[in-house]
């Protein structure tokens, strides 16, 4: 039975990663209300899941082994644990841009790029590689590429440009 779950997990990981739900940028976009992407994902997922549940209930479907299907309702209690836990999680979520499965995915992606040295150009370069830009005052730029540094300007000395010989 376990290999089935493994396969399902692989499928889920593929869907999550292809939908870019594992991206810090997408999370930021969501919290700034600048795109419908994440809301669309969660909204349609909930709709499809709810529909699936209704179908299961209506037709009284059973599991593959013939057992009844029932989801135990969550205990409400005082509600504190949900609000507090949820808020704490939300803070961490916005900071890191990752939920639990996504942490795993990001870790896997990073390990993949480190070990096999592929696709450097568009994912974290080797994490030990520091950005190569300095402004005239030898201030390390935070931008990984020249064009965005020029666009925003050197943070400490906004009127200075990147040294052209680098």
């Amino acid at each position, binding site marked *: 039975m376990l290999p089935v779950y493994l396969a399902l997990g692989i499928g889920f990981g*593929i869907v999550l*990663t292809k*939908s870019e739900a594992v991206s810090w940028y997408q999370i930021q976009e969501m919290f700034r209300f600048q795109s419908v992407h994440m809301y669309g994902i969660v909204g349609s997922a909930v709709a499809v899941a709810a529909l699936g549940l209704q179908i299961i209930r209506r037709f009284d479907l059973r599991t593959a082994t013939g057992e009844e299907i029932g989801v135990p309702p969550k205990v*409400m209690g005082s509600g504190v644990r949900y609000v507090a836990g949820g808020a704490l999680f939300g803070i961490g979520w916005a900071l890191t841009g990752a939920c639990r499965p996504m942490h795993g995915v990001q870790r896997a992606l990073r390990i993949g790029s480190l070990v096999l040295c592929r696709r450097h150009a568009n994912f974290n370069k080797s994490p030990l590689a520091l950005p190569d830009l300095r402004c005239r005052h030898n201030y390390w730029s935070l931008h990984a590429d020249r064009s965005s540094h020029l666009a*925003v300007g050197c943070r400490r000395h906004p009127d200075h440009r990147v040294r052209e010989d680098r």
Partner: protein
Amino acid sequence: MMHPWPWYVSGPLIGLFVPVLLLIDNRSFGISSALRHTCAAVLPTRAEYFRYDWRHVGAWNLAFTLGILIGGAVVHLWLSAGAPVALSQAAQQSLSQRGVDTAAGLVPAQLFSWHALTTWRGLTMIVGGGFLIGFGTAYAGGCTSGHAISGLANLQVPSLIAVVGFFAGGLVTTWLILPALLGH
């Protein structure tokens, strides 16, 4: 296949996992419990919280989570065109204004790398953020899959409260804390 998928494709696919997991063996879709099962399996502790038959209750979850890791690697290695994340114009602008490079793949390298761990900001965001995620998830009994998707699909009020909590925390962070951390 090589390009990112739109939400109306991936969303329904994700939603399908809820009834499918139920139909297989009455498994409630939720991933964060994987940590609890891992601790129960591995830690030599006598706490009540970890004293349950993790093999029965949670082994499926561990296999599923392992699959997620593999799936992520599969996409990164073979199914990705390597383009930067497709962000809206507005998002790109607001992030660039704060000095975040938007072309660096799924996650901004300057905020999340080994190098970043040596800075206070990086430490706060990575370790602090990670801790908050772990603690909050365990406290609330679920993360986005368990509460936001399964819980809401099941019309559970505690899940709705949890999701409201997620958003409250996330919004506060995005609008108040991150600007402070990113230095503008």
